[in-house]
């Protein structure tokens, strides 16, 4: 058994706290006032959440918030997708731990991971109960969480035994899973079609944002490269595009997209309203991602491209193998910032009549049965969005550390 380090405050923690908060009389006064405010606010929120708030509005509509009006008899497809996602997550997580890029030797459950597991288990047990889901549904959540942890454990335990060739294929399960997910959600290949107008809630929000995030990234990289190209047509085209998009509010573009795509494309060719919005989101975010990537490109010294070219690498190879790996690492935090903005911008879809999380919430609040329960609904929305954004942020942070070969002393 590996020794678990005892949990204790580091020596000096109390002194540091005292020095930080009560260094002088004025400091102490400010600290006391601020802590008082914070405590009062937290107490007020807790009192409201525990005694006054009526959470029935959430538990009664939990399916609506999750998937909108997705047909009940087809929801097994979403459960299947969730299960697959949990397995893929567990597998990738375990493999990342089995092959640390650098740092201390492998441990099966590092401290951060134990925290993550604890949070996952608590959420898996408490959340379905709090939502007063039927027992079979609660058990499904337990099973899915169990599968995730099982995959995590197995991959961490035996990951190193997987031959390198097949391990290289593991990241490919994600794009594959995305395609499988698309089929599962929308139907086809023998499955009943579920029209996009029936998607809603968290499902629609996550689908729209993941679609836009995945596509706006390569598009943004191409635009950034175009903006720095020596070919005038390419350069001015990229500049024009980026500046036009950045000069218009997203909501305008969304309305424009809903109306204009119908005129531009012959009848029936125009994508469905939901997909129109998804493409507008993609094109919108691409312009901002392009600017983030451009800042990364500027951070790579010109000598890098010169060295690569003078070794005989043609421009595309020099960009792919030398310039972009360095530029994208620099641009990563700003790019993920754009992704987070994009995720939050999906709430604008409710203004063009789509039932994303916010749209669903508005229909729920308009229901006479739940009149005046706005606070409960908005609080839950805020927490949901916060969770998604925090996950993106954590992921980006982990990626940043992993992509950094070592602490490079800057020249």
């Amino acid at each position, binding site marked *: 058994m590996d020794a678990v380090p005892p949990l204790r405050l580091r020596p000096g923690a109390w002194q540091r706290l005292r020095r930080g908060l009560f260094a002088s009389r004025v400091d102490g006064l400010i600290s006391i006032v601020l802590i008082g405010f914070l405590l009062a606010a937290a107490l007020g929120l807790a009192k409201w959440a525990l005694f006054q708030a009526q959470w029935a509005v959430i538990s009664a509509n939990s399916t609506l918030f999750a998937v909108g009006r997705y047909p009940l008899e087809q929801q097994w497809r979403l459960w299947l997708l969730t299960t697959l996602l949990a397995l893929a997550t567990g597998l990738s997580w375990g493999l990342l731990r089995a092959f640390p890029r650098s740092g201390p030797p492998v441990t099966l459950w590092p401290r951060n991971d134990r925290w993550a597991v604890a949070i996952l288990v608590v959420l898996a047990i408490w959340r379905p109960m709090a939502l007063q889901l039927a027992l079979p549904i609660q058990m499904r959540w337990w099973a899915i969480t169990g599968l995730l942890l099982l995959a995590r454990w197995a991959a961490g335990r035996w990951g190193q035994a997987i031959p390198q060739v097949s391990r290289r294929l593991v990241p490919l399960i994600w794009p594959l899973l995305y395609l499988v997910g698309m089929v599962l959600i929308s139907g086809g290949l023998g499955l009943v079609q579920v029209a996009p107008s029936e998607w809603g809630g968290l499902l629609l929000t996550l689908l729209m944002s993941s679609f836009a995030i995945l596509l706006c990234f390569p598009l943004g990289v191409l635009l950034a490269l175009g903006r720095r190209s020596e070919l005038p047509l390419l350069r001015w085209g990229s500049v024009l595009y980026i500046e036009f998009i950045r000069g218009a509010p997203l909501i305008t573009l969304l309305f424009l997209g809903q109306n204009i795509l119908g005129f531009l494309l012959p009848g029936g060719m125009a994508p469905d309203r939901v997909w129109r919005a998804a493409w507008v989101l993609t094109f919108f975010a691409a312009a901002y991602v392009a600017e983030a990537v451009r800042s990364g490109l500027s951070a790579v010294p010109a000598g890098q491209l010169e060295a690569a070219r003078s070794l*005989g690498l043609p421009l595309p190879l020099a960009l792919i193998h030398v310039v972009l790996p360095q530029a994208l690492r620099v641009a990563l935090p700003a790019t993920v910032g754009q992704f987070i903005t994009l995720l939050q911008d999906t709430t604008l879809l409710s203004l063009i009549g789509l039932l994303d999380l916010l749209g669903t919430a508005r229909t729920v609040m308009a229901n006479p049965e739940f009149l005046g329960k706005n606070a409960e609904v908005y609080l839950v929305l805020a927490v949901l969005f916060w969770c998604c954004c925090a996950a993106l942020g954590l992921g980006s942070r982990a990626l940043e550390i992993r992509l950094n*070969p070592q602490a490079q002393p800057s020249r």
Partner: protein
Amino acid sequence: MTPSPAVMIEARGVEKWYPNGFHALRGVDLSVEQGEVVVIMGPSGSGKSTFLRTFNGLEDFQKGSITVDGITLSDDLRHIDAIRREVGMVFQQFNLFPHLTVLDNLTLAPVLVRKLAKAEVQRRALELLERVGIAEQAHKYPGQLSGGQQQRVAIARSLCMEPRIMLFDEPTSALDPEMVLEVLEVMQGLARDGMTMVVVTHEVRFARQVADRVVLMDDGEVVEMAPPERFFSNPQHPRSRQFLSQIS
């Protein structure tokens, strides 16, 4: 009479204007034979680096012609890449790829451009690292090496493409004094092995000991071209004399 060796670089009447109108090269001629070591010296801003960089197309020029290893430089990108495969270049700022290990820095181009098997290239790369004296650093990243070590890796990286010509653009100017010698020694070894080299440098001792010819450039022109012993002991042109008095 021995047959005259092949001409590796032939530059005739090269003129270059920068976009801002600055006339950087004013009709420069130079011819470098196989196995020759030519050192280009001159005050900063004299156009010596610019001239060197025209040989592998890092700088363009408006008039004149340059032929490298039998290939004439033109706008045709295939020609430029063909020349760059045969011409190695070492930079003042090393320009190693910081996201790749030392070994990967060496193998990247041979694998991607020459399409050689990775294992074979790695074997040659390790030999080269041995030759420049840093085989034990092969799996480190450039940022973990000293300046002198980095520059030696940069030389090995160029050699890994098995070039027929090596260009050096002030290879020791960014180094701490105690690291200059280890880099110059590697270059001296290269010259001994018969590599054709054009070196822009301020290292008088290297020029004296290794160069076959020294070229002095000033104001975008070749002022004087002579074997080192004559150049350093008996310079003909007043601007050469002025330059030599400034650096010694």
